[in-house]
């Protein structure tokens, strides 16, 4: 234990064993569990903000004609919805899980760089304040889509520098968070916790963190060039000066494609914990899971231009990016098959986390299939920029990433809080969500195939029925998330006492701790055999 003499410890007033009281606990904390909680609560709040914007979109699209908002405001909602969901809800939620779980899973006392950890988190609320404040300034927020394509995005008014600088702040936060994760995993494992013994959530996060450090600076560079093009007269994206608007797209998607895997790899990790627990059977193909994750990460760097099949690339380029993109189906398939094989001849029960995990496997795969269809370039000439694409990415992101987060919340909440959640309510929430989400996004496939472009506030009459169905689904799905909020609050405040292991099939170091775990855990490293 600590050999540092108390005389050298200048922070006398804080005990080693418990948190500080009041607001200071949260503002000044260096504790991975506190910071994890902050991240998770922040992301939940952002999920509701981003979701409310999605409901504005869906409400306007309920019927043809302009009803509720102005087209320009509609575009702001689309743009902000995506930025907030991606950078404010899904990414921070995974970082929150990483904070809570990685030290507990590898037997470390905390994250490797605890003060920087606090900084990574506290940048975020400020960054999103900056971003959201643009809705209230003259000319409104950014309206060029989350992809920020020039020259359109350069028409943004006073909001422009706010958006760019907010993105810079999110980038700084993500990079520091990722550095922390890598340092923790590589340096803080308990004796005996070799790399190939690490739980899969840890593995997927290690690879995700690498992706983050590799691509967040790329986004930073891209938006910096937007900034100088607008304010300092540079010509990166201006043909008259020798640049090219398409250059931005290449850079953006060099970030953007790995980014979508940043939002799914940790989800794969979560699912790889939950399915074995409730199948009461070890994960099938652990090693191939690790290699598949690494292959997906590698491939993610060489497929970016599948978002740009229609910009007029040379044939050879299109072919290369088409083949490379199709290849991703192979390692992803390995993962899906491994999950199914894990269930095979298990002894399954279907508590809420498992329900979400099963729905994840099915619905993510459907999203993956539509992704594969999009990767076929000649067909993408039709699909591109239609609701087929919107359906694709919401299937992988909502019943994909978001469901994995819900599953994780139900799965680990008893560990975190020491209380069991209400299983009946959990199941109700699951069924409302899974039904709602399909009513919401399945019809969008048809809309896209029938020819409805994305990012439009008004549409031709033949698209009416499916849009109505979709909007109804959106409100079912959205309102059911209020139930989730209720369940989480209820569980934090009380409930049946959770055992240490919580689930009878659960394996791993985090389940050896008490529920809730003490404020500081593993100050002496456990022995892993």
């Amino acid at each position: 234990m600590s050999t540092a003499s108390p005389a050298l410890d200048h922070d006398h007033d804080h005990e080693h064993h418990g948190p500080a009281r009041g607001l200071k606990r949260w503002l000044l904390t260096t504790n991975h569990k506190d910071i994890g909680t902050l991240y998770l609560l922040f992301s939940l709040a952002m999920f509701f903000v981003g979701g409310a914007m999605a409901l504005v979109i869906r409400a306007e699209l309920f019927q043809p004609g302009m009803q509720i908002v102005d087209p320009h405001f509609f575009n702001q909602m689309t743009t902000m919805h995506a930025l907030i969901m991606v950078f404010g809800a899904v990414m921070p939620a995974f970082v929150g899980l990483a904070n809570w779980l990685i030290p507990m899973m590898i037997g470390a006392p905390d994250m490797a760089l605890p003060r920087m950890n606090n900084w990574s988190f506290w940048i975020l609320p400020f960054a999103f304040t900056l971003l959201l404040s643009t809705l209230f300034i003259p000319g409104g927020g950014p309206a060029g889509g989350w992809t920020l394509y020039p020259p359109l995005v350069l028409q943004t008014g006073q909001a422009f520098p706010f958006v760019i600088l907010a993105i810079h702040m999110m980038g700084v936060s993500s990079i520091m968070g990722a550095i922390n994760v890598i340092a923790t995993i590589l340096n803080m494992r308990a004796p005996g916790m070799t790399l190939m013994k690490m739980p899969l959530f840890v593995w997927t996060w290690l690879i995700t963190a690498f992706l983050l450090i590799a691509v967040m600076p790329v986004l930073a560079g891209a938006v910096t060039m937007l900034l100088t093009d607008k304010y300092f007269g540079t010509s990166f994206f201006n043909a008259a000066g020798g640049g090219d608007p398409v250059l931005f797209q290449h850079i953006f998607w060099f970030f953007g494609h790995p980014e979508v895997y940043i939002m799914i790899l940790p989800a794969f990790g979560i699912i790889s914990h939950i399915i074995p627990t409730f199948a009461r059977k070890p994960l099938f193909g652990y090693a191939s899971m690790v290699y598949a994750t690494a292959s997906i990460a590698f491939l993610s760097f060489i497929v970016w231009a599948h978002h740009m099949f229609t910009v007029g690339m040379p044939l050879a380029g299109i072919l290369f990016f088409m083949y490379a993109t199709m290849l991703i189906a192979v390692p992803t398939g390995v993962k899906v098959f491994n999950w199914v094989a894990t269930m095979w001849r298990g002894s399954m029960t279907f508590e809420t986390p498992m329900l979400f995990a099963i729905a994840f496997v099915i619905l993510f795969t459907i999203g993956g299939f539509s992704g594969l269809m999009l990767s076929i370039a000649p067909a993408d000439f039709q699909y591109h920029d239609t609701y087929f694409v919107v359906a694709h990415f919401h299937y992988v992101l909502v019943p994909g990433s978001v469901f994995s987060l819900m599953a994780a919340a139900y799965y680990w909440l008893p560990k975190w809080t020491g209380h069991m959640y209400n299983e009946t309510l959990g199941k109700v929430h699951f069924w409302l969500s899974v039904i709602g989400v399909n009513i919401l996004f399945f019809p969008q496939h048809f809309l896209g195939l029938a020819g409805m472009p994305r990012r439009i506030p008004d549409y031709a009459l033949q698209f009416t029925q499916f849009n109505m169905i979709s909007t109804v689904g959106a409100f079912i799905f959205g309102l059911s998330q209020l139930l989730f909020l209720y369940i989480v609050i209820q569980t934090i405040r009380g409930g049946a006492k959770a055992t240490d292991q919580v689930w009878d099939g659960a394996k791993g170091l985090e389940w050896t701790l008490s529920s809730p775990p003490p404020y500081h855990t593993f100050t002496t490293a456990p022995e892993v055999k």
Partner: protein
Amino acid sequence: MTSSRILRGGGIALISALSAWSASAHADSIWNMTRGVTDISRNVYDLHMLILWICVFIGIGVFGVMFWSIYHHRKSRGAEPAQFHESTAVEVAWTVVPMVILISMAVPATQVLIRMADASEAELTIKVTGYQWLWQYEYLDEDVSFFSALSTPHDQIYGDAPKGEHYLLEVDNPLVVPVGTKIRFVFTSADVIHSWWVPALGWKQDTIPGFINENWTLIEKPGTYRGQCAELCGRGHAFMPIVVEAVSPAEFQEWLARMKGQDAPEAPTAQTDSPALTLAGDQPL
């Protein structure tokens, strides 16, 4: 526990919805991609159906195994967990088989792509320029040029009048082209990126300011084909449709002769009575 039964039911419903969707796809319908009116568009449609079916079958296989397992390997049915956790043979198989399936998709896709890339030997070249928020068409060797903007009245958009049949898919000056003729399009933009898309032709092409893209078509059937701008281009993005009128070569020549007599095109700013522009109201952009 009933939840697993419901889950299974839900899965089956989903799968049957999926196959119903593809089964009903043989006619042009609001359920599926159009077959279009060109050779290329039919190639694209066939490719789309091929991948769709492959995915449906893989899905039925994977989910079938999964639901079987969910049903039979439940604790409530007294299932005892096995302890196996790897099998090299199986893992190799499910790496190699998808590879083979992918190759079988990549081959036809490549063929179609190569065909689409060949814009040579066109008999007519039309230059398309995107503007916020209308299109300009120039018949390059014919000295014909005009703008084409949304013609749906403002009242219909704002619910003050009943919406017409081609609500938002109608323009003042449609693009007129001859059938049975290979037509080359060259695309550019005057401001931001737009994307010119008529589903019946089987493709869309972005218009990049400062650069030229090209594409081509050969329409077989006379008719009116409608499309829209497919790249977010600001406030009026939903309001810059495309209407192509494909007519017989003789009619086309007639039309061309009539158009040649007309004045040079007005500047787009003069089109202030276009609903797309008045939509902007007094707001900037």
